[in-house]
């Protein structure tokens, strides 16, 4: 995955043929959609919450450099060590350096999408460090050497029988079971031992509050609290868009995040971390590091439309509501961030040459924009990705803009334009299509288009012509 070549069409074809996979996704995502509706109030109140959440994130983006400076200053005052990384490679090196400075070989991890973006586990393993996922879903797929297929429920593509086999095959002395309670108990026993003995704990960050230098993490399992409390060192990683201005921004953001993600009023734990262990305190890490990652984000900020990608709070609800994602699942996208948000985020991070194709997997049905808690105009940005991939006007800004530009398409669109500009040409083309349109050779793009669609039939006479024959003068 990741930087490997993405054959999206092959992935989609394979996923669509996998009935088990489709059944697993459909059942899980339908449940999530229902739970979301059940926990949100009436439409009018939802819109007021969204007003607040959108304002909080757009305000933060409008003041991003000041807020990041303030966050850094407050964190430093509180005793948190702040690091900056332009690229994922730099962020990985920083974390390796922290591990080495403590002679640490065991990292226990809470769920973090940024660490997936960094491919941190693989990187650390090549340097002899065990990086263990402790969120149950992440733990399951790590045992099976798979990436997450959903940003909130990473093992959503597995059913209980598959999980039972993964445990039996990979954990010592564990017999097969497909009883969910027993599977959870196995994970509890295995992982509590790891929390007790881990050298360093790693977490993501849901919101970083500039006003107080506080890192806010939400979770249900308690593994996040374990990772950020039991080991003597805590490392938090975040994308630079996670900062918000003040604590008062949190209530609507938290409420919408958990409602959108899992249909909950609140998670089991909201964990607000402001400093390492102080004099006299009995537990908590003695050292906290915050790694702030750019990886293409500051470039998105410079464009009024693209910057709205950075409003994302990673709730995953656009995945749950996407007719394409529901049918193909997360792995087909071959990227850390799948689904609608992935279609706009991934091409901007990895470039249009490599990942621009993801933006084609949308019917622009607008479901994602309708449910987005912070109102990211995802379909509009998907169209922007498509336009920039061809970049006819040569004014693109996204990495790899113009990557799909080609002579055939340029000529076709030029022809289309001329046909509508020059009346004589229009009449000629329309009459030709009426006569020969149904006899076009079934090759190239026409063949691809008609492989799963019925080819349109051309009317022998155009509407203009019919109107004229009917004697309508001012059509």
């Amino acid at each position, binding site marked *: 995955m990741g930087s490997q070549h993405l054959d999206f069409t092959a992935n989609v074809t394979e996923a669509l043929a996998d009935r088990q996979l489709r059944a697993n996704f459909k059942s*899980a995502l339908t449940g999530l959609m229902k739970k979301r509706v059940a926990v949100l109030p009436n439409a009018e109140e939802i819109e*007021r919450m969204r*007003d*607040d959440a959108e*304002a*909080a994130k757009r*305000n933060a983006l*409008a003041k*991003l*450099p000041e807020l990041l400076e303030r966050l850094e200053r407050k964190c430093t005052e509180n005793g948190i060590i702040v690091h*900056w990384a*332009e690229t994922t490679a730099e962020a990985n090196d920083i974390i390796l350096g922290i591990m080495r400075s403590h002679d640490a070989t065991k990292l226990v991890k809470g769920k973090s999408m940024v660490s997936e973006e960094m491919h941190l586990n693989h990187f650390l393993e090549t340097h002899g460090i065990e990086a263990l996922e402790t969120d*149950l*879903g992440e733990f*399951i797929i790590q045992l099976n050497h798979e990436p997450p297929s959903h940003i909130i429920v*990473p093992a959503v593509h597995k059913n209980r029988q598959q999980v039972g086999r993964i445990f039996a095959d990979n954990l010592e002395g564990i017999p097969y079971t497909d009883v*969910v*309670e027993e*599977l*959870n108990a196995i*994970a*509890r026993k295995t*992982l*509590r031992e790891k929390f*007790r003995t881990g050298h360093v704990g790693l977490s993501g960050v849901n919101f970083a509050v500039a006003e*107080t*230098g*506080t890192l806010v993490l939400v979770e*249900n*399992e*308690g*593994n996040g*609290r*374990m990772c950020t*409390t039991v080991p003597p060192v805590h490392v938090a990683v975040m994308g630079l868009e996670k900062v918000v201005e*003040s*604590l*008062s921004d*949190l209530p609507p953001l*938290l*409420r919408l995040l958990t409602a959108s993600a899992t249909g*909950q*009023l*609140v998670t*089991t*734990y*909201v964990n*607000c*971390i*402001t400093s*390492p262990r102080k004099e006299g*305190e*009995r*537990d*908590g890490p003695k050292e906290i590091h915050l790694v702030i990652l*750019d990886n293409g984000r500051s470039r998105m*900020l*410079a464009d*009024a439309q693209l*910057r709205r990608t950075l409003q994302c709070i990673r709730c995953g609800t656009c995945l749950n509501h996407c007719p394409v994602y529901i049918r193909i699942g997360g792995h087909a996208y071959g990227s850390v961030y799948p689904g609608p948000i992935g279609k706009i985020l991934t091409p901007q991070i990895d470039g249009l040459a490599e990942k621009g194709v993801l933006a084609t997997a949308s019917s622009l049905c607008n479901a994602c924009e309708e449910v987005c808690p912070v109102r990211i105009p995802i379909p509009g940005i998907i169209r922007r990705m498509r336009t920039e991939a061809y970049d006819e006007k040569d004014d693109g800004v996204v990495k790899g803009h113009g990557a799909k530009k080609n002579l055939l398409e340029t000529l076709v669109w030029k022809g289309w334009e001329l046909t509508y500009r020059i009346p004589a040409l229009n009449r000629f083309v329309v009459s030709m299509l009426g006569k020969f349109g149904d006899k076009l050779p079934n090759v190239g793009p026409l063949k691809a288009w008609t492989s799963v669609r019925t080819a349109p039939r051309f009317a022998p006479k155009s509407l203009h012509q019919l109107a004229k024959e009917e004697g309508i003068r001012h059509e």
Partner: protein
Amino acid sequence: MSSTARDRIFARLHAARTTVSPYVPRGGSWQAPMLDKDQRIELLKKRMETVRSEVHVVPEAEWPAKLLEVLKAREPQTMAYGHDAWFGGTLRSKVKGKGLPKLVPYGENVEAFRDELFGIDVGITSTLGGIAENGTLIVWPTPQEPRLLSLVPTVHIALLKADTIYSTLAEAMREMRWAENMPTNALLISGPSKTADIEMTLAFGVHGPKEVIVLVLD
């Protein structure tokens, strides 16, 4: 001197603001309803019970009796607590005898206490307050009552004074002046640890407590 990653990131961030107008939509219109005291207790209880917490509302003087009842129903072997918590003395005088756990004070640094703590059955803590709107306990651990008391033992018992229950999170943040007083770690806790990572089937007690029991002292 060569520029650092930080310099290069900030150069781009500052440059970006010159290209985009600073339009920001107006927020601040959403607020959950404010409730009176009885409504706050009732809603907190309802919300917490929905996520499988056990909530008992008892007159202030009767909480030790309720605690003993809760403990006797479970017969735990050990209970960790903060020696200097406001209720420490009461525990030491009341939690004695058959069917009641041995009291273990969290009196050392975690490095020395960790292995014992992971085997303890019950952790009991005070709370700074509660929030009715989302059914959570506000827990700010202290040197007297460390963070892991509410996480590692199999059962977490929390004492909550009814007059510290707020209607909303926003109100709690304002009234308690969070912005000026953020502690090392501030927690909201709504119930036992849970997961739905396998087939979206909800199960409790995955890493942290399997049970959360709240005594609301009215």
